[in-house]
C-alpha cells in the first residue's frame, strides 16, 4: 500500500520559464477591497510578466466566528445566524441547519411544509445563480447582464418578502415546519415567476452563450480535471462541470427530491464555460422542480408539527389552552433538549454541498455546530486553476467558483 497523491494533470511550465531569474517575479496583491473579488477576498499573486506562477488566497476578513456563536446560542436562536453566512441564498442555509436539528431530534415537518421548503430552497438557488451570473458577467465585461439578472432576482425577493417579511436574511424556517401561514397570493406569485423566468433566461443566453467575447474569456480557461476535482472535494457546478455526477439532491435525496423528475447537468471539458452552461441548465431544472412541487403539493394541511416537544406550539392554541401555554413558556425560556448524539446533514446548496455537523450533549445549547460551506472548499481550486493562467483570467476564475465571502469566512 503506498500513499499516492492524485493531482490530475499538472500544468506544464516551460523550461524557459522555469529558468527565469526569480528577480523577474513580481508579487501582486489583489484585494481585499478589489471589486471583482466578490467581497473581501485577498489573493497574493506571484507573477512573471502576465503569467501567474503562484497564488495564495488569504481569507478571514469577514470571519465572525459563527461556529463559536453556535455553541453559545440555543438551537432555535442559531437560525438567524445561518442567514448571515451565505446571504444571497439565505433560505438554503436555514434549510440545512433546520434539517440537521430535526434529524437530531428525530422529527420531520408535515408534507405541505416540506413542499414549501423545497420551493423556497429552489428559489434561493435561482436567486443565488442570478447574482452569480450577473456579477460573473460583469467581471468579464458584460455590464448589462448584472442589470437584467438583478431585475429577475427582485421578483424572487418579492416572493420571500411576501412570505416572511424579509428579503435578504429571511429566517423563514422553524423546527418542525414554518411558523407563519402561507399567504393566499403566494402560490400565484410563484407560478407567475415560473412563467416569466424561462423567457428571461433565453434572453440571457442569447446575450452570452454564443458571444465571441464571452467565449474567448471562458473557453479553455480554468480547466479542472475530473480526478483533481474529486480530490479537492469540490462540489456543485465546479465538480459537475468536470463531468462528475454528484448532486446531493439525486445522490442522497432529502426532502421529497426523490419524487421529483429532474436532470443533473454535466459538463465535459471542465472549463469556465462548461460551468456556466451547467448553472444555466440548473436554473431551468429548478423552475421545473418548483412547478412539480406546486402541482404535487396538498392544498390544505398543517404547516408545522403541533405535538412534538421540540416545536414551539402554535399561536392559536397557546392563547386557548393552559397546556400549550406552559409548553410555550418552557420552550421560550428553556429551549428544547435533543438527545445526545451527532448528525451530519448535507443539502445541495446553490454552490455545492452544504453540510451541517451538529453535536448535542443533551442540553438546549448545541455542543458543536460545524458549517461545511461549499464555497470555502471550492475556493481551494483557485491556486490550481490560476497556475499558468493570465492575470486577467483571475477575475473569471473567482467568478466561476461562485463565492460569497460571508460563507467562506463564516
Amino acid at each position, binding site marked *: 500500500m503506498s500513499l499516492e497523491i492524485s493531482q490530475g494533470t499538472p500544468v506544464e511550465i516551460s523550461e524557459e520559464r522555469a529558468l527565469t531569474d526569480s528577480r523577474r517575479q513580481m508579487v501582486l496583491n489583489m484585494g481585499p477591497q478589489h471589486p471583482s473579488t466578490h467581497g473581501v477576498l485577498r489573493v497574493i499573486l506571484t507573477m512573471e510578466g502576465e503569467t501567474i506562477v503562484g497564488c495564495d488566497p488569504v481569507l478571514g476578513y469577514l470571519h465572525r466566528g459563527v461556529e463559536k456563536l453556535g455553541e453559545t446560542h440555543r438551537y432555535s436562536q442559531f437560525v438567524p445566524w445561518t442567514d448571515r453566512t451565505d446571504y444571497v441564498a439565505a433560505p438554503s442555509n436555514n434549510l440545512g441547519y433546520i434539517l440537521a436539528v430535526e434529524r437530531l431530534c428525530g422529527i420531520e415537518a408535515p408534507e405541505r411544509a416540506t413542499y414549501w421548503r423545497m420551493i423556497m430552497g429552489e428559489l434561493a438557488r435561482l436567486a443565488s445563480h442570478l447574482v452569480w451570473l450577473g456579477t460573473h458577467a460583469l467581471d468579464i465585461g458584460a455590464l448589462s447582464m448584472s442589470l437584467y439578472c438583478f431585475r429577475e432576482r427582485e421578483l424572487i425577493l418579492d416572493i420571500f418578502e411576501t412570505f416572511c417579511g424579509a428579503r435578504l436574511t429571511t429566517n423563514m424556517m422553524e423546527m418542525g415546519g414554518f411558523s407563519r401561514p402561507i399567504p393566499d397570493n403566494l402560490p400565484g406569485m410563484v407560478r407567475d415567476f415560473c412563467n416569466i423566468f424561462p423567457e428571461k433566461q433565453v434572453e440571457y443566453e442569447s446575450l452570452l452563450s454564443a458571444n465571441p467575447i464571452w467565449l474567448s474569456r471562458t473557453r479553455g480557461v480554468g480547466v479542472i480535471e475530473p480526478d483533481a476535482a474529486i480530490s479537492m472535494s469540490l462540489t456543485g457546478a465546479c465538480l459537475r462541470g468536470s463531468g462528475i455526477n454528484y448532486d446531493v439532491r439525486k445522490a442522497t*435525496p432529502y426532502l421529497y427530491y426523490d419524487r421529483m423528475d429532474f436532470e443533473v447537468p454535466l459538463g465535459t471539458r471542465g472549463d469556465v464555460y462548461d460551468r456556466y452552461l451547467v448553472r444555466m441548465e440548473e436554473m431551468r431544472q429548478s423552475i421545473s422542480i418548483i412547478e412539480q412541487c406546486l402541482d404535487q403539493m396538498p392544498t390544505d394541511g398543517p404547516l408545522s408539527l403541533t405535538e412534538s*416537544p421540540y416545536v414551539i406550539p402554535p399561536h392559536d392554541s397557546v392563547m386557548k389552552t393552559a397546556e400549550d401555554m406552559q409548553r410555550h413558556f418552557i420552550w421560550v425560556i428553556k429551549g428544547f433538549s435533543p438527545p445526545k448524539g451527532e448528525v451530519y446533514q448535507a443539502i445541495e446548496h446553490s454552490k455545492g454541498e452544504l453540510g451541517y455537523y451538529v453535536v448535542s450533549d443533551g442540553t438546549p445549547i448545541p455542543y458543536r455546530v460545524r458549517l461545511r460551506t461549499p464555497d470555502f472548499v471550492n475556493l*481551494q481550486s483557485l491556486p490550481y486553476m490560476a497556475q499558468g493562467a493570465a492575470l486577467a483570467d483571475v477575475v473569471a476564475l473567482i467568478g466561476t467558483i461562485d463565492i460569497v465571502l460571508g460563507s467562506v469566512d463564516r
Partner: protein
Amino acid sequence: MAEEQQTGGPADSPGRRIWATGHWGPTEPEEHPAVIAVRERFPDSFVDAVNFRDEMTIRVDRPALREIVLFLRDESSLRYNFLSDLTAVDMLRLRDNPRFDVVVQLYSIPRRQRLRVKAAFNDGDPVPSMTLLYEGANWLEREAYDMFGIVFEGHPDLRRMLLPDDWDEGHPLRKDYPLRGYREYVQPGFENPAPRVRSRFRRP
C-alpha cells in the same frame, strides 16, 4: 418531559424520513460492510462503531487514522473517494481524556454512501494529515489547526486559515476560550474597557 424527549415523540415512527436516511448503509454495525472490513483489516486500531439516526460512525485509534482512511478510499468494495468534511470537536466538557476528536466525513460517489470516521487524541498529539489522500483536506486541516490548535503531521503548509497570521490569543473554538477572547477591548466613549463577559446562556 425529559423522558418524552428521549424517546422522540411522533417522530420515531418507522417509514421514510425527509432528512434522507438510508444513505449511510445498514444501521446495524455488524452488518455494515465498512465496519466489517475495517475491523478485519485493522483489529488493533478499531475501537467501535456507533449508529445514531442511521448515521454510522467508526471510531479508530489516532496513529492508524490515515491508513484506515486510505484503506476505505482504495478498497474496491468500499471506495470512499470523496472527503466531505474534516473537522474537530473539543470534548473538554464531555469527558476527561482524551480531549479532542477529529471527525472525517467520507462519501463514496460510486456507491452513494456516507461514513464518518473519528479518532480521539490529546492536546499536542500529532494527527496524521489527510492531504496525501485528499487534496481538499488542505484548507480544512488548516482551519482545524487555526480553531483548535491541532497539529497535523505531514501537512505541507500548516498556517492559520481564517484568523490573522500573527494572532497570539490561542485557538478560539476550544471550549476554554472565552466568547469575547482574552483581550480587553476599548469602548469608544467609555473610560473603562469592555469587560470580558461570558455568554448570557450558561450551560447547566
